């Protein structure tokens, strides 16, 4: 079990600092909203942005060192810092996108900002977790806040339905996850990752507990990252939730899910790769193929992006599969195993960042346009002639979609390149081929939107007030998508150095 030293020493405080900033910031935003009467509606969003920036600043300034801290609860160091930056960045973008919409429709919802901060707090804990308790704590903090975010448009039936569905199914999957953790605890007699790893290495305990337990946990994480067959909530919830929340869920929640999936996969890899590898292979292939196939026939851009996010979860799962593949587990060739494992894991990190950038750019544009009124605001046909009316928005969306399709010189291509290269290195050529075929298929539905935007014309759409801050932000993201596509090196090296901190 974990052992807290009370009172906390200076190192522990410095580990906690970013979490305290975000969590305390959430409370502060709530209090300001409740008690400051002269508040203009933009002010909360500025405050939220400041909180996110402060969390970044403290992490740049304070380095608590590497390794498990706080009695082994949280993993401090580059790994958690990497994800904390990512979450804070996505949080900043989401705040900007959300604020743009509030300004227009007048349905001002101040509870959004503290909820966003609490979600991010949960994600940070989840990604840094080094203990099953921390995992559950982080996951539930994240999930509870996301349920409300998804159902956040009061009075909108689809949004409420999305929130409710997500709540029911999320609770359902959390129950399984908790059950899995209980089984694992029963097996190891401890909730700490390092302790579990030691017990696994000695091979004591009943195997059925750990296999069944890990299966239940895999399902719980698979639910969060929208892995087939635990994906079914995704299209409904992504479609019903407001677009800025959908963008947030498709990027940050997915990144958090993959962070913990990677951790747990590495934890169980030496003893349980044999069980996870074949199952995850099937799940990964199903996830990619189903996501892409169903995305082909969507006419609603949010549903299309929802299915595309399922497909991308499939590509990312390939990275996890590679980690669990026999090539990595082979004790006879440790050096090779290590490079393959490292390149797979760093490819997953690179992919998460690239995917977050391009997806946020896409959702940034979709977000402002989905607010233009009419039930069919998200219909792809409503994007006809966008290139002429809103050239910057159209170009941004086009860059994001091309990148999602994996076309050079955008970051989506490099992300897929690193990922598939790792898959090939592990000797899993058929999987790489399936991945490439899948991304070929995906080109169709991404290009379709571009064709509609650039090659179809329509009578002037009544909506013209594209909110420029959101579009400019999305445009900046698209520029970053291009930059990282041309110069991925430095960033890929950073991802690789983050990975080296993890046990292999």
């Amino acid at each position, binding site marked *: 079990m974990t052992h807290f030293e009370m009172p906390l020493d200076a190192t522990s405080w410095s580990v906690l600092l970013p979490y305290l900033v975000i969590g305390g910031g959430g409370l502060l935003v709530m209090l300001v909203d409740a008690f400051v009467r002269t508040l203009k509606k933009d002010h909360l969003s500025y405050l939220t942005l400041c909180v996110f920036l402060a969390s970044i600043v403290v992490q740049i300034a304070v380095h608590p060192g590497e390794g498990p801290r706080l009695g082994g609860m949280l993993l401090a160091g580059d790994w958690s810092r990497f994800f904390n930056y990512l979450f804070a960045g996505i949080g900043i973008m989401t705040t900007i996108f959300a604020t743009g919409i509030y300004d227009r429709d007048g349905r001002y919802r101040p509870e959004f900002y503290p909820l966003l901060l609490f979600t991010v707090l949960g994600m940070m804990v989840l990604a840094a977790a080094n203990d099953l308790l921390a995992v559950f704590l982080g996951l539930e903090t994240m999930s509870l806040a996301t349920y409300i975010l998804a159902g956040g448009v009061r009075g909108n039936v689809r949004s409420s339905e999305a929130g409710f569905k997500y709540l*029911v*199914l999320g609770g359902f999957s959390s129950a399984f996850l908790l059950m899995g953790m209980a089984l694992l605890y029963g097996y190891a007699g401890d909730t700490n990752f390092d302790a579990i790893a030691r017990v696994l290495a000695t091979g004591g305990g009943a195997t059925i507990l750990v296999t069944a337990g890990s299966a*239940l946990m895999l399902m719980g994480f698979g639910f969060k990252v929208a892995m087939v067959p635990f994906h079914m909530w995704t299209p*409904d919830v992504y479609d019903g939730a407001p677009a800025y929340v959908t963008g947030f869920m498709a990027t940050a929640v997915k990144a958090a899910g993959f962070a913990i999936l990677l951790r747990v996969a590495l934890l169980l890899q030496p003893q349980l790769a044999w*069980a996870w590898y074949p199952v995850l292979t099937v799940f990964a292939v199903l996830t990619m193929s189903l996501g892409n*196939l169903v995305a082909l026939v969507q006419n609603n851009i949010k549903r299309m992006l929802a299915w595309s996010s399922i497909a991308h979860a499939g590509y990312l799962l390939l990275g996890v599969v590679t980690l669990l593949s026999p090539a990595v587990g082979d004790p006879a060739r440790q050096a090779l195993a290590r490079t393959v494992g490292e390149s797979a894991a760093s490819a997953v990190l690179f992919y998460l960042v690239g995917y977050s950038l391009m997806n946020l750019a896409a959702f940034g544009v979709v977000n402002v346009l989905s607010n233009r009124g009419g039930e069919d605001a998200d219909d792809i046909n409503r994007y006809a002639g966008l290139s002429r009316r809103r050239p910057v928005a159209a170009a941004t969306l086009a860059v994001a979609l091309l990148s999602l399709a994996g076309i050079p010189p955008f970051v989506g291509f490099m992300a897929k390149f690193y990922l598939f290269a790792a898959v090939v290195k592990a000797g899993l050529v058929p999987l790489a081929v399936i991945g490439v075929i899948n991304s070929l298929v995906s080109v169709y539905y991404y290009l379709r939107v571009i064709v509609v935007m650039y090659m179809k014309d329509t009578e002037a759409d009544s909506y013209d007030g594209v909110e420029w801050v959101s579009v400019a932000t999305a445009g900046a993201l698209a520029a970053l998508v291009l930059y990282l596509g041309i110069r991925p*090196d*430095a960033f*890929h090296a950073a991802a690789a150095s983050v990975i080296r901190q993890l046990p292999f």
Partner: protein
Amino acid sequence: METHANETLLRWIVLAPLLGAAVIGLLNRRLPRRVAGLLACATVGLSFALSVVVFLRMLGLDPEHRRLTDILASWVAYGNLRIDIGFAMDQLSAVMALVVTGVGFLIHVYSLGYMAHDDGFRRFFAYLNLFIFSMMTLVLGENLVMLFVGWEGVGLCSYLLISFWFDGEANAVAGKKAFVVNRIGDFGFLLGMFLIGVTLLPHLAPGEGAFSFAVMQHHAPLLAPVATAIGLLLFLGATGKSAQIPLYIWLPDAMAGPTPVSALIHAATMVTAGVYMIARMNFLYVLTPTAMAVVAAVGAATAIFAGTIALAQNDIKKVLAYSTVSQLGYMMLACGVGAFAMGIFHVMTHAFFKALLFLASGSVIHAMSHEQDMRVMGGLRRKLPVTWWTFLVGTLAIAGVFPLAGFFSKDEILWKTWSSGNTVLWVIGFLAAGLTAFYMMRLVSLTFFGTNRASEEVRHHIHESPATMTVPLVILAVLSIVGGWVGIPAFMGGGAHFEHWLEPVFAGGHAAGTHGAAHAVHDTTMEWILAGASVAWGVLGLLLGWIVYTRRLAVAEAGRRFAGGLPYRILENKYYVDEAYDGAFIRPGYRLSRTVLWKGIDAGLIDGLLVNGSALAVAVVASVLRLFQNGMVRFYAWSITVGLTVFVLYLSFSG
């Protein structure tokens, strides 16, 4: 490897024209014409000035350390592969950079006048600036990949500028032809590059850029086993870009572009990229006598082949185009016999006099209200005095008359060919030199001598060009006279400065390439004899051309009717090569495309089975899957449970 001095000016030499292209291209109509034109000239002028500054700095260094680099960033670093975005200038790049930016600047200025009344004025200068940027990337690229980026960039600009007047179908077709033919060459180039990569990568230490010229040269012995393959593949790329047999066919058609473009891209700079690349890769070529022999033979064959075609062309620019192909053949011949320095020397002098000839012909075309057929010209000597005199200088230079620029470079190429023991190639080159003099004088006679044969209205409009056009002509004429003096060979008491300047770059080439190098030191008699012979031969060609086409037109007519006019018709139709390619590749290609690829594979297999079939399959599958996506939470929970159950059951039974 020795470390090289840093020089951050290099990036600005390359980037200045890009900046100009971006500003002019993006602002386009919002920019006044005058500003656009001046900006374009200024950026290239800046590039030239900076090149001179860097060149002066190089002069201050001792010869072994005259390699300046400017690495901007690492571009690709994956596993052992490392490619930098960077520039390097050594003696070879310096020559090329000065020529490209210098001649480029003059042609920019000339274009101010030539394109003054064109609707696409700004677009033209944006492309022209983009071209200089690409060309400088090619010339100053620190590695083969950067060179290739520039290589493709100039190809693109060439395409854009050939079809600059895209409303004429012939222009669009010519642009497409250039693009497609160059693709064939680029295919070879890419394969060559890949072969270098696979050969070198396993042997390199991490962080060594496999395609960096310095690294490749350092590891040249590793490349020796595959040098012939690489050399030939890269040379295929060079035959495309530098218009050699068998891929020369695009260059004459490229004359559809505006004349300054023909001067800059299709005579002075871009088409010499192939020669530059081979000279740049000299350390590789000296390892492979086979590839060298192919380069030399193809070069010599192209020189005489294109020279004969030029005899019977009536379009003033077509004559110059075939002459360019022929001169490029000389440069390749020089590289092939190991005289890389002489090849580059000829690149430089040719850039001067061929740019001059094209610009002067542009001045003629300008005066003749865009008439290009020489048969309706004539007698322009008096009406266009500046054009006439500068054209004459260019003609004498290309004919190799002493002491003009062309004499020194061409004569040195022929001498190196002779002294390396390639007597047959020397004979071919010598014959081609006579042809050059003859067809050039034919051009001059038909254009400037005699009486004007144009219509009354055209004749009325004939006028000398404005100063923006004539001043560059005069400058280029001066360069065509004195440009060769930097390379006066030792036997004439000159210092052969040009050769010595490039010596460090081609150190390997001279050791292995020219067998006769030692021989040349004492045996100057032969050099004198050959030099005298080639001057006499050139003058004879000039005289013949002058006499036949100004005085004895009956002789020309008799020559045309010789053997039923068949030889003339063959030459006029360029040996029917275009027709042969059309019959051998293009029409079968179309047929294959129509019957097999389109109707069979595309319409039948792909459209019918794969596209419609898979679309049907997807539609069926997706509609089935849609049933699952029914929005019912109970069903979703059920499917989660089923998935999980299957997983747990699998684990229980397989474990």
